[in-house]
């Protein structure tokens, strides 16, 4: 089993995952970062989305060994310690989510997108979130939350 070292939420983490272990399982099982959710486990639902080297990726569609040397941010690392970040607060204020299963993937995808496109309009936000499936909300409240976050970020 290869030894790997990577940065997760700002801290250096090491491990010796089996080659077949996905990054998602490594985060959850080896690093106990269970905020990253696993839905379909074959790249369809988006629940496992994390930010890898600045871009949203599906952590179920890459091997942990492939993340060696990378900088990974999970839902646990998105806000300041123990607090919610701008996006999380805006989604809270908009009652964006219901059951919460899709939440980490949806938030990480939105975070990656907003950091690259702070001026995004509703259509662009819907396009960016189109790979993340939510079975509760009908998406309107989620889009509202991301739009509110974008507005607050622009006003500052």
């Amino acid at each position, binding site marked *: 089993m*290869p030894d790997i070292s990577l940065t997760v939420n700002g801290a250096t983490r090491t491990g010796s995952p*089996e*080659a*077949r*272990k*996905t990054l998602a*399982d490594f985060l959850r099982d080896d690093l106990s970062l269970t905020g990253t959710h696993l839905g379909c*486990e*074959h*790249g369809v639902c*988006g629940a496992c*989305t994390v930010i*890898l080297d600045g*871009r*949203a*990726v*599906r952590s*179920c*569609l*890459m*091997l942990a*060994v*492939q993340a060696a040397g990378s900088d990974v941010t999970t839902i646990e690392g998105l806000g300041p310690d123990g607090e919610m970040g701008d996006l999380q607060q805006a989604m809270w204020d908009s009652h964006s989510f219901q059951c919460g299963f899709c939440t980490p993937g949806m938030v990480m*995808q939105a975070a*990656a*997108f907003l950091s690259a496109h702070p001026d995004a309009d509703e259509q662009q936000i819907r*396009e*960016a979130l*189109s*790979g*993340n499936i939510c079975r509760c909300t009908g998406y309107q409240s989620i889009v509202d939350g991301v739009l509110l976050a974008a507005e607050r970020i622009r006003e500052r």
Partner: protein
Amino acid sequence: MKLSPVDYEAPGTVAEALDLLAEHQDDASVLAGGQSLIPLLALRLAQPAVLIDINGVAGLSGVSVTDGWVTIGATTREYVAEESATIAESVPLLAAALPLIGHEAIRSRGTVGGSLAHADPAAELPAVARALNAEFVVRGPSGERVVPAAEWFEGYLTTSRGPDELLTEVRFLAARPGTGTSFQEVARRHGDFAMVGLATSVTLNVGTITDARLAFAGVSDVPARATAAEELLEGERPTAELFDEAARVAAADIDPPSDLHGSAEYRKKVAAALVRRGLREAVGNAMRGSD
């Protein structure tokens, strides 16, 4: 759905990758972006003994231009190609197709070469490669060979790449002046594989179509050129009646599959509609470009 146990190799050079392929042959799968291969492994539809991860192979990523050809390294990520000014300017059909691949997070990892080597007949890039007669550069134990797109796609998820060969780059001829393109697709949901997709490229010279390329995705086990419709278009002036006739001929020429997403009959109707839309947009772009 967890992957089967598998050995993992991460070569740093093409030579090392070729040595590993020569050793493991069909027992190995080449891992690039993994956005199609990892699901196959997770579903255990593929169970290779060894994964040869080429993400760390030097010199396989990047976009360059030489002698009117745009060369894309096999491990160039789809988002990098999507953001490439060179591709937007010189291979507009490819630029139109790239944003339709999966979703943003898929394009973060997925690679141009990976999609073309995976050869899903419903995917966007194989249709673009067929329409534009792309050239596939393959390295093997006896050196390099160049495979035209017409000979690359052999069947469902099957290419003419030998088990000891590696796709290293794909070349597209830069669009000639007077050329307009369009990529059209109809999918059940945004980001899904298309039920039918169509890559269109039309070149106009003084108002006459001198070159027409139509390549379907999703209608057979390989991306398929609509040759009868292409021949009908060439030498003619673009009119709505001509596009209707081309749509009729193209749809009559295909024998698409039926599945729970749509019947063969429905797919033929969609195909005809896409030919009309594709030709309208491509000709419109060609006219604007030549102003």
